[in-house]
């Protein structure tokens, strides 16, 4: 199993993806601020560099030089480790996303995917749910009531919407007959994008995906009007930045997953596939995230829970049942 060449390829690929994710995340903040400004008839950051393109750099420098504050009441270990867990989980989720097909470099076939797990979908769910540990432990470890309340909300919300996420993916898996993301992409290339075959699952997935990444309108864990900043109230400087990066990387990962599961991933009908298609589709979803934030007000906590358990869950289960019946009937 151990093969120096494959190991090197994996490491290089991982580094490229991590670097790419972090860069994209930085420019995602710029993109979000500019787009949300346009949606609100504002301009947004346009002074730092051409059209504000150096703004992420300036923000990063600022965060680096901020004081790293650790509250007296905080739990030393949890407080320090929690943001790292969040960031790790967010970055790890991207490992199973197929960025492209198999390319030949100097006679070697290299899959553009860090790890093509046969159970990639399960891994994806595991990684995305790992992120909640970062929020909960950070909120608990801060020793502050707002952090704790934010963490409680985060736990309840992420655990609830995990279910919807899983159910929407289950119907995709039933249709494709594969738990590997590369397999799901291939299945879509040979039939049709699953957004057409599974529109209900797609809507469920998007709602759950937004809730899972704690983005507006499901940003209750960090509802600034109620909880100051939720679970990261006490964090400052680079530790806060890690939560921030984690949120945006999770957003990017979720966009990639949505593109892979429902929009054919790196393939495109009648055209040669490649990473650019995935990037294009991800951009669409990232814009959707921003658009959502610009448009919808935050849900109340009871609305959030009712939406999950009373509306989305029955629809999801029904969708899975119908899908299973149809797939079984067709054979």
């Amino acid at each position, binding site marked *: 199993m151990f093969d120096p060449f494959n190991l090197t390829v994996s490491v290089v690929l991982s580094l490229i993806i991590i670097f790419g994710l972090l860069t994209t995340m930085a420019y995602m903040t710029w993109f979000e601020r500019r787009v949300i400004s*346009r949606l*609100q*008839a*504002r301009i947004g950051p346009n002074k730092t560099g051409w059209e504000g393109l150096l703004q992420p750099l300036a923000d990063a420098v600022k965060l680096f030089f901020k004081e790293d504050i650790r509250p007296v009441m905080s739990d030393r270990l949890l407080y320090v480790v929690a943001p790292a867990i969040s960031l790790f989980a967010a970055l790890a989720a991207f490992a199973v996303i197929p960025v492209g097909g198999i390319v030949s470099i100097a006679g070697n076939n290299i899959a553009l995917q860090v790890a093509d797990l046969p159970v990639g979908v399960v891994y994806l769910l595991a990684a995305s749910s790992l992120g909640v540990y970062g929020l909960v432990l950070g909120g608990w470890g801060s020793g502050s009531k707002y952090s704790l309340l934010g963490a409680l909300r985060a736990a309840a919300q992420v655990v609830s919407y995990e279910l919807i996420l899983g159910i929407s993916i289950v119907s995709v898996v039933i249709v494709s007959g594969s738990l590997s993301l590369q397999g799901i992409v291939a299945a879509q290339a040979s039939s049709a994008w699953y957004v057409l075959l599974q529109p209900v699952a797609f809507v469920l997935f998007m709602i759950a995906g937004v809730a899972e990444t704690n983005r507006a309108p499901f940003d209750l864990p960090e509802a600034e009007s109620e909880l100051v900043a939720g679970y990261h109230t006490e964090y400052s400087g680079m530790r806060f930045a890690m939560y921030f990066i984690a949120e945006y990387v999770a957003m990017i990962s979720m966009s990639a997953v949505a593109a892979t599961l429902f929009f054919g991933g790196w393939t495109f009908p009648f055209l040669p596939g490649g990473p650019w298609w995935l990037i294009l589709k991800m951009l669409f979803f990232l814009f959707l995230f921003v658009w959502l934030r*610009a448009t*919808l007000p935050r849900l109340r906590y009871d609305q959030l829970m009712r939406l999950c358990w009373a509306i989305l869950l029955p629809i999801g289960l029904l969708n899975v049942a119908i899908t299973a019946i149809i797939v079984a009937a067709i054979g």
Partner: protein
Amino acid sequence: MFDDAIALLKGFWTTVKYTARPAVTIQYPDVKRKPADKYRGRHRLYKTDEGLERCIGCSLCAAACPSQAIYVRAAENDPNNPVSPGERYAADYEINMIRCIFCGFCEEACPVDAIKLGPEYELADFDRKDFVYTKEMLLDPARNAPKIQYHADVDRSTDFRGVHTTLNGVYRTHHPIGAPDTRPRIDDAGHEPGPAGEEHGPVQAGAKPAGPEEAR
């Protein structure tokens, strides 16, 4: 349920529509909006058409000021070479712009329309002492309003309105509380300076004899 979905789509369409609108943002340092006509910004002292200072040194502005930001020291006009149209003029006129709340009461209180609040609002500076605006700066800010100025009467003045306040250091011409006032009494030109130790010369000078005179 479908109504809700339609309402949702309407919301999304609304935000998209806004992208077509011109941004409401005014890019401040590059583009400066004109303040309203009644905007209360930096004070200006005005002159009459003959070129005399309108201010007659009555100190009503200082009395009206709720934050005690204005200091006026009046002096008698020389009839041959008057500074103002009235009997007296403002020998010192200072506004501490850190204390000022831009309420415009000084403007309302002024009987001769000498002081008005203008449209200028970029008043930031680096040093506290630079925020004490002198008469020259207020009369001709274009020429006399640099960041650093020098005032000849530093440490040579009375307490404000004859009342010991905690404004120590607020005024450029403020002398330490309790210290004897050795300043020549400008308002009683030609008279001997007041006895050493007499405080609050100009403002109280008029008030002091009032008691005995009324008794007579």
